[in-house]
């Protein structure tokens, strides 16, 4: 565990906490970008360069921008006067804390049986391309179909209804 890991972990967790806790919705979206950037750095630290840069391109470049667009289109940047949290937040908080306790307990008590590969894997983008075009070609095609369907579906759902069109 190096200093770099602790720095990146603190950055990601702080960004995630700010994204969930801040009152202004636009600030939440910006904090979410920080959390995504921290996670991308963590992927790079884990020698998964392709996944790290895909995370930067897709999450910071596309999803965060989409969230900001949605906030501005729905006027969600206006902070509501009667609070941003639900009226009974205790149930959700207890559920989340319980799940974190169970997960943390499981992680801390299973370290002895987990495999421990210390050699650095050498994976080039060419290997990933060969795998995508060989062993994983069917999932790739299904994801392509899913993305096309999601694109068409999102446009249809968000399209303006014409007056008297129903």
């Amino acid at each position, binding site marked *: 565990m190096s200093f770099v890991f602790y720095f990146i972990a603190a950055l990601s967790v702080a960004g995630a906490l700010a994204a969930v806790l801040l009152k202004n919705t636009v600030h939440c979206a910006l904090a979410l970008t920080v959390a995504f950037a921290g996670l991308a750095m963590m992927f790079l630290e884990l020698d*998964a360069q392709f996944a790290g840069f895909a995370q930067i391109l897709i999450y910071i470049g596309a999803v965060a921008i989409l969230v900001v667009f949605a906030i501005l289109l729905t006027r969600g940047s206006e902070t509501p006067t009667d609070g941003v949290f639900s009226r009974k937040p205790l149930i959700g908080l207890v559920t989340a804390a319980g799940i974190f306790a169970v997960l943390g307990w499981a992680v801390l008590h299973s370290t002895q049986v987990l495999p421990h590969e210390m050699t650095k894997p050498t994976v080039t983008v060419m290997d990933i391309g060969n795998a995508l075009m060989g062993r994983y070609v069917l999932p790739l095609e299904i994801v392509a179909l899913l993305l096309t369907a999601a694109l068409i579906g999102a446009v249809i759902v968000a399209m303006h209804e014409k007056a008297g069109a129903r």
Partner: protein
Amino acid sequence: MNPSVNPLTGYLLVAALLFAIGLAGALTRRNAILVLIGIELMLNAANLNLIAFWRYGPHPEALTGMMFAIFSIAVAAAEAAVGLGLVIQIHRHAKTTDLDAMNRMKG
């Protein structure tokens, strides 16, 4: 047993913490967009788990965990696009994104 020696433990704990934060956000926020942000955080925590297990697992050259994470990122992008489109349409219809105010499915 000193758990801080194993680097995998650290990544798994960070992923568990991010998942819990995202779940708490999705369960307690009232704005529908913030609920989607919480869901994105949970998906990212799962991706971190996949990549960490790929890196410290027995056969990293098989690329299994990395491929799973890449496909998961693609599915999450599709989910975000459709979810935010739905939120925009609901706001156009009901003039609110407050989930407590959306208590009927009839148009």
